[in-house]
């Protein structure tokens, strides 16, 4: 059992969610597609980015 499978099985067990081998394969495929982007996001320097207050997607940002 590799680190990904350990993480998945332990995490879902803690949440009380069962998983079968097909679902595990799907999760592994999803992580192959999106995992690199997620990890790049996790490492991105976003510390200076101020969250837009009262973000309203129907309008442009009030403050820039």
């Amino acid at each position, binding site marked *: 059992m590799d680190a990904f499978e350990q993480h998945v099985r332990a995490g879902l067990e803690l949440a009380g969610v069962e998983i079968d081998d*097909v*679902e595990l394969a799907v999760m592994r495929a*999803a992580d192959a597609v999106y995992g690199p982007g997620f990890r790049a996001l996790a490492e991105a320097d*976003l510390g200076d980015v101020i*969250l837009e207050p009262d973000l309203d*997607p129907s*309008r*442009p940002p009030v403050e*820039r």
Partner: protein
Amino acid sequence: MNGGHPQDLGLRAQADAIAAGDLDPRELLQATLERIAERDGPLNSIVATFPEESERMLAAAPPGPLHGVPIAIKDMFQLPWRGPRDGAPREALPAGESGVYRALRDAGAVIVGVTQMHFWGAGSTGHVSAYGPVGNAWNAEHCGGGSSGGSATATGARLVAGAVGTDGGGSIRLPAAYNGITGLKGTYGSASREGYTHANSTMGAAGPMCRDAADARLLGSVLFGRDLAAGVADASGLRVGLVRSPFWDDLDPEVERACRTAVEATGWRTSEPALAGAEHAQVAAVLRLTLEGLPSLSEQDIAEADPLTRGLVKYELLLPAHWLVRADRVRSLLRRAVADAFASCDLLVWPTVAAPAPRIDNPTVTLPSGPIAPDAVNVRQAGIANLTGQPGINVPVGVHSSGLPIGLQLLGPWGGEELLLDAAEHVERATSREWVDALPPTASASAQV
């Protein structure tokens, strides 16, 4: 009519012919139901028809811009006689009057069918649904797209002249590109969210899916409750930003060529602005889209889903919370960057999809970087407009050597639907309407009217 089938007419032409007394709306409804029955078998784009309810709507239809015109609607909206199912086996909401239903009813439209969609709206291919895969109007062995694939295919195959879709991560624009039709995602909140299965989403917006921009203007005016007037700008003199990275990167060469050719044909002044945060737009959109949907799912919902959807949901359950916080910072960054870009550009432009619709039995696309799941690259192309909330439109601009359509995406400023439609019509004229009027093989038996 000249003896042709009335569904070979576009939306405006149907409405005009009814208003002029040249087309009996009862005959149009009957002909539409017959065409769905004749053509939709291999396409599987329509989940349900309900002739008695449609006839009742027609009998009570008020005068209006769509009086007597059949419209199909995605399976995400409450209808008085049917609860929406969201591509899943059971109702997601009970039967009722959604805001979109009321807008259509009050405009005199006749809802003729509910369209297929990707399971829970969670994909851009449409090959996963409780009702089976939706085929492409140009080749039923290829994906009709998602999540509004049924609306796109039904419109492309001339089953209806207009349909309602929704777009939370490209779900109008992407299947519109796959099927060679015009699909407009409105600004967030431009259409009613009442009675919409994803009403809690900060990403999703409804919009028209039609054969060309003028038809989308007509249906969009009804859905958005305001006149999307033509001619707000000199569409021949627009300044457009081609955001090279990541949106013009790693494209099927024929897609890139067709989109560049179309942009050149417009005569628009182009620049290549960069958008801060664009490199993270794909995963930021995926995080927002998927995590916003999770609280609505019960254990029973998950247990009843297909294995692919179940696996994806369980993957989403383990995504760290701080990633969503980071995604929201990217969202703020992108909204500011896009607003700044509109100081020097009228529109942002890039290909709607990186490659044409994949096969249903092998839903992958091949890009210069190699084979990839279409969802990943599709949300890269489209998800930014859902994060920002701005409107976007797909315009057909070519047909690939595989025989499948190619689409160009135009993104406008918030509330800029009129400008987008003007620009889309300019693209149509600049390309001599070659692509917007192209007829898919599934509809080629139709007599031209």
